[in-house]
């Protein structure tokens, strides 16, 4: 046996890959072929589905994508925004843990993943209470500070859905970023500082303030306020959201952004950014729990449609075609993203 293997060296990598390949075949390739087959079918659960090779209902794809275009847009917008927000919140967090954590590093990392010890359903439902009409958040900004009108609501708005997604997937961003930051050789930073990459205080402060404030206003006004009430936002609310972003932006920018950071640390951690954003974006786009629990009929994502079509309408072809389109879109997106950043970055990110 050993002798035979030695003579057929080319076989060894294939043998080592065999379990993985079989796994992929059984649990990815075959189910996907079956899903495509259902996506191309016609009929109902009661009459039975007729699909390939008898019928090739290619029209299912354009029809369903057109009909549920709004849900696709919701998925992309909320998922994309959640990814950006996870990055903006997660990077300073990972940076602090990696560079300033000291002996508390392990405890801080544990705290990042601690929410996973509670079911995510319970956590999402808890947000309903916290952001709810009688909850503590509105008690402060509406009743206490009087910043928003009496009929202001968070639950049921796109803001709530995006916030829920951001919260839920933040650890997926923080952990790869932390790993990438950990691996940055501190001597490189010192060397850069020796070579006149000094602090950049006003720049960091201003950049942080602009990023924080701009994102907060865009998210708060665009998603939460104007779209829900439909009448545009009043000045107080805009100022409130702006301040909510500017203040942490200034703090983070001042503490973190320096010339050495821009020239050394950040470029070296791009693989972590890449991995983290994929780990957040992919599940966030497919998520339906947040839209279901925190949203309204107008904020339903494509995951909600697939869920409803499968379980309530028993309309398998529609559900399968939507799921297939979603998966294909994500795969193409990842492919383009990987080409953009280079596959080496992808390999680094997964190390």
């Amino acid at each position, binding site marked *: 046996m050993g002798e035979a293997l030695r003579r057929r060296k080319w076989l060894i990598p294939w043998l080592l890959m065999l379990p993985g390949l079989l796994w992929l075949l059984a649990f990815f390739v075959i189910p996907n072929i079956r899903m495509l087959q259902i996506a191309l079918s016609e009929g109902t659960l*009661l009459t039975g589905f007729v699909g390939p090779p008898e019928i090739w209902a290619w029209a299912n794809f354009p029809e369903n994508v057109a009909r549920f275009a709004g849900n696709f847009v919701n998925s992309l917008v909320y998922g994309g925004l959640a990814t950006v927000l996870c990055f903006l919140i997660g990077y300073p967090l990972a940076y602090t843990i990696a560079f300033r954590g000291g002996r508390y590093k392990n405890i801080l990392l544990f705290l990042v993943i601690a929410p996973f010890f509670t079911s995510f359903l319970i956590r999402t439902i808890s947000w309903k209470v916290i952001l709810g009409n009688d909850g503590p958040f509105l008690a402060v900004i509406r009743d206490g500070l009087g910043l928003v009108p009496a009929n202001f609501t968070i639950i049921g708005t796109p803001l709530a859905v995006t916030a829920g997604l951001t919260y839920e997937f933040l650890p997926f961003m923080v952990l790869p970023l932390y790993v990438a930051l950990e691996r940055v050789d501190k001597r490189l930073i010192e060397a850069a500082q020796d070579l006149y990459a000094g602090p950049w205080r006003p720049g960091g402060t201003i950049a942080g303030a602009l990023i924080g404030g701009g994102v907060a206003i865009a998210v708060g006004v665009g998603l939460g306020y104007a779209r829900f009430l439909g009448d545009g936002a009043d000045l107080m609310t805009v100022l409130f959201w702006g301040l909510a972003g500017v203040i942490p932006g200034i703090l983070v920018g001042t503490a973190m952004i320096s010339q050495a950071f821009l020239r050394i640390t950040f470029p070296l951690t791009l693989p972590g950014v890449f991995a983290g954003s994929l780990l957040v974006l992919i599940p966030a786009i497919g998520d339906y729990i947040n839209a279901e629990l925190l949203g309204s009929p107008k904020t339903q994502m494509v995951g909600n449609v697939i869920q409803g079509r499968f379980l309530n309408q*028993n309309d398998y072809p529609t559900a399968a075609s939507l799921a297939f389109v979603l998966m294909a879109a994500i795969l193409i997106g990842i492919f383009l993203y990987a080409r953009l950043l280079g596959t080496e970055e992808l390999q680094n990110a997964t190390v």
Partner: protein
Amino acid sequence: MADETTTTTLLDAGLSRRRFLQGTALAGFGAFLAACGGGATPAPSGAPGESAEPGDGGEITGPLNWANWPAYIDLNEDESASPTLEGYQAKYGIEVNYVEDIQSNEDFFATISPALQAGLDSGWDLMCLTDYMVARLAGLGWLDEIDPANVPNAVSNVNDNLKGIEWDPDFKYHFPYQSGADGIGYNVKSTGRDLTSIADMFDPAFKGKLTFLTGYQDTFAFVNLLLLDRGEVSNTPPDMTNEDADKVYAFLKPYVDDGFIRAFTGNEYLQDFASGDTWVALVYSGDLASSGGPDDVFVYPDEGSIIWTDNFCIPKGAQHKRAAEAMIDYCYDPLIAAQMANWIYYLSPVKGAKEEIIKLDPEAADNQLLFPPPEVQAKSYPQPNLTTEEDAYFSDLSAKLEGA
């Protein structure tokens, strides 16, 4: 601190009441879990796929595989066991595999239909499903006939008002398990007024604080009552047509578009009442009384209400059909029926149960949920009774309304 207070309020509103699970806040969770877990349901013993021949040859054999809704059976004080199930086991000496596996009629239908369509055993001997779903199963020929000789209690004790139902007038395929009603639930502190009619739900003051139920069976039928009252449609809920559904859709759509109707929910409305995000909602009769807060009120609206019944039925190919019949008969003993009703707070279909309930708990006699007054009963209608084509049309409309 505020944080803590709110959390406590929610817990008080729910967990401290013995029947927090009642009605199903958990049904919602369960549905999600099932959906997340790829719909994995624990397979009952007697795996699906065995031959469709009755396996009991006329003897009562076990175990009895019974699928039911969550929190839909009586429990003892520490909620560790069910007196009814224990009594049955003692009487017949067979195990009951009681599984709370039904979170929605449609979801459950999706799990059993492949086996039944192929003529195989679904793995269940007894199921409790809502009228329209039993009618659909019976229409498809997927139910076993119940032998009247094996269920003498049920034949003689079933309430007269449940007799002669259109799709199964002679109880060939079903016997009622429990009934309940749809009505208006509201938090009187938030609304600052009493509501008496469906029209009251659309008071401009309630914008963004109103929810309805998912699916068409409750919401479409209920709004149809409002349109009937206004003369905009002419059919009562059980006779609704596609045109009536269009009118209901046209009526509700603007309210959804401008955010007046905040959501379509399952029993999660219990949480929304607790958090103050829902002031007014279409609710099931027993839920707020058992699991809501002190300011949450249930009313039967002036325009009428929707009454539904969950029914025992036996799927074709059940391996322990005699045991299932024995269970139906056992539950139709007025003493047992009273014992169940007094815990789960729905309407018992059993003659004589009322007297037994009052014997158990004299205060229950005034409970409108257990005993709806005659003027309410006169205006109660069943859910729409639809053909499969109409059903597809209605569910498509309701899905559109729900944004998915």
